[in-house]
Structure formats: structure tokens, C-alpha cells
């Protein structure tokens, strides 16, 4: 296998990391929706935590995306 195609495959593999981010973000917001549906009064209290969780979950996936970009455009 030559280097160029190995890089493409590597970048594609690195993007699999975004699966976890997708699952995580979906989980965060589904929990937020069910929490607010059960207790609408708690919305103001739980929403900041939901967005904190969203940012943390998204960041882990972006580590993989950043690696993919580095493989494609830097090395």
C-alpha cells in the first residue's frame, strides 16, 4: 500500500471517533428532554449541565476529527 492511500484510510478510520460523540450528544439531549418532560420546573437547573455535557461529549469526538485533519493536511 502506498502512503497516499494509507493516509486516506487512516483519516477515515480516525473519523470513527465521531460515532462516540454522536451517541454522547444524543444521550445528553435525550436525557435533558426526558428530565424536563418529567419536571418542567427543573429546566433552568438542568440546562447548563446539559450544555456542559454536550461540549464535553463533542470535544472527545473532535479529537478524532482533528487527528483526521492532521493526517490529511499536515503529514
Amino acid at each position, binding site marked *: 500500500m502506498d502512503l497516499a492511500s494509507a493516509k486516506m484510510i487512516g483519516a477515515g478510520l480516525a473519523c470513527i471517533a465521531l460515532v462516540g460523540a454522536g451517541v454522547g450528544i444524543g444521550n445528553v439531549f435525550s436525557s435533558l428532554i426526558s428530565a424536563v418532560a418529567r419536571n418542567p420546573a427543573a429546566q433552568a437547573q438542568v440546562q447548563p449541565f446539559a450544555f*456542559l455535557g454536550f*461540549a464535553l461529549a*463533542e470535544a472527545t469526538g473532535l479529537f478524532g476529527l482533528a487527528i483526521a485533519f492532521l493526517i490529511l493536511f499536515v503529514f
Partner: protein
Amino acid sequence: MALELHPLEQFQIEPLIPLHIGGLDVSYTNSALFMTVAVVLITALLVLGTRRGALVPGRWQSMAEMSYEFVADMVETNAGHGAEPYFPFVFTLFMFVLFSNLLGLIPYSFTVTSHIIVTFALAAVVFIGVTIIGFAKHGLHFFRFFVPEGVPLLLLVILVPIELLSYFIRPFTLSIRLFANMLAGHTMLAIFGGFAASIGLAAFLPVALDVAILALEVLVAALQAYVFAILTCLYLRDALHMH
């Protein structure tokens, strides 16, 4: 289809005023320029915004007061009591990261926080500062932070190294989180922009996508500044109250 994409070109640091002291390259770069712009804008927002000090605040004064109250509330709820002396630091950190992130969203500008060395410097200041506060407040008792209470001795052999690792990894996760978000977002924008430049009439599709991503990036810019500040608060609470 051969695409000429250079999405990482936007992160290039260029010296604007070359300056060498000894063997050190301390040129005034575009990165330094945007840091200066961020600091000037924050100072203008807060100093000029609160200059009149009206009882019923106008729009400008409201912005200044809301940002102040937002961070003050965050420090109070997340860092616990006794954290008030550190509020100015958290506020400065939050405003600097927020303004750097938002300034980077302006086309053809430079994103300061997309460079790991910048975010790592900020995170290292937080980490070293928090560790010093912990030792100053608790003395050598601060080492108990790494020893969970009520755990059998056998488990401690495993848990203490894990606690130590999770403590020392903090500056890295804190800085990489912010850096990776900014890098990935801006690279994605540039890649779709590059598609638009190469496919002619169908270009409105990637441009529309770019607009959507830009909206997400505004959210991410604000959110990452919030996350950076709130994690600083949580680390501060660990140092002040130890669990």
C-alpha cells in the same frame, strides 16, 4: 477530481513587526495582534460600559453587567465559598477565551485559541495556580486528595495512581479540548469553502452548509469558553475544599 485544499493555511502565524532580542524571536505576530484586539475589546466593553453607572442600565452596560454576573454566579455555585478572591482570574480567563473564539469566527481573522500552545499556556497557569492554592491552603494534607477515603488498602494501590494520573492529565485535556474544537471547526469551514470554490454552480450547497456550521461554531465558541471557565472553577473547588 483533484481538489486544491489548504484548510490549515488560516492557522499560519506571520510576523507583522519582526523583532529579535538575543536569540529569541519575539516578533509581533498576527496571533499577538488578535490577542491585543481581544484584550482591547474586553477592556472597552467593561470600562466604557460601566463608565456611566446608570441605575437603569443601557444595552452596553447590560452586556457588561450580564457577563460579570454570569461568571460571578458560576464561581459561586461551582467553586464553593472561599473562592471569591479568584473570581477576577476566572472572569479574565472566560472573557479572553470567549473573545478570542468569537473574533476567530470573523472571516479572514485569526483564531488565537486554535493554537495548542496558547490554550496549553492558559491551562498550565490554571493547573499550576490551583496546585499552589491547594498546597498553600492545606499544606501537606493536600496529598490526601489523591487517596480516596474508605477504600481498602489493596484497592488504593490501583486507585492512587489513577487519581494521580487524572490529576496530572488535567492541563492536557483542558487545553486539547479547546484547541481541538477550534481547529476542527475552522478546518471544516475551510474545507467546505474549498468545495464551493471548485464545483461551480452547485456551490450553494456547501455554502449553505458553511452557514449552518458557522451557526454551530458560534455556539461552540461560547460553550467552550464556558466549559473552560467552569472546569477552572471545579478544579479550584477541589483545591479549596478537597472533594
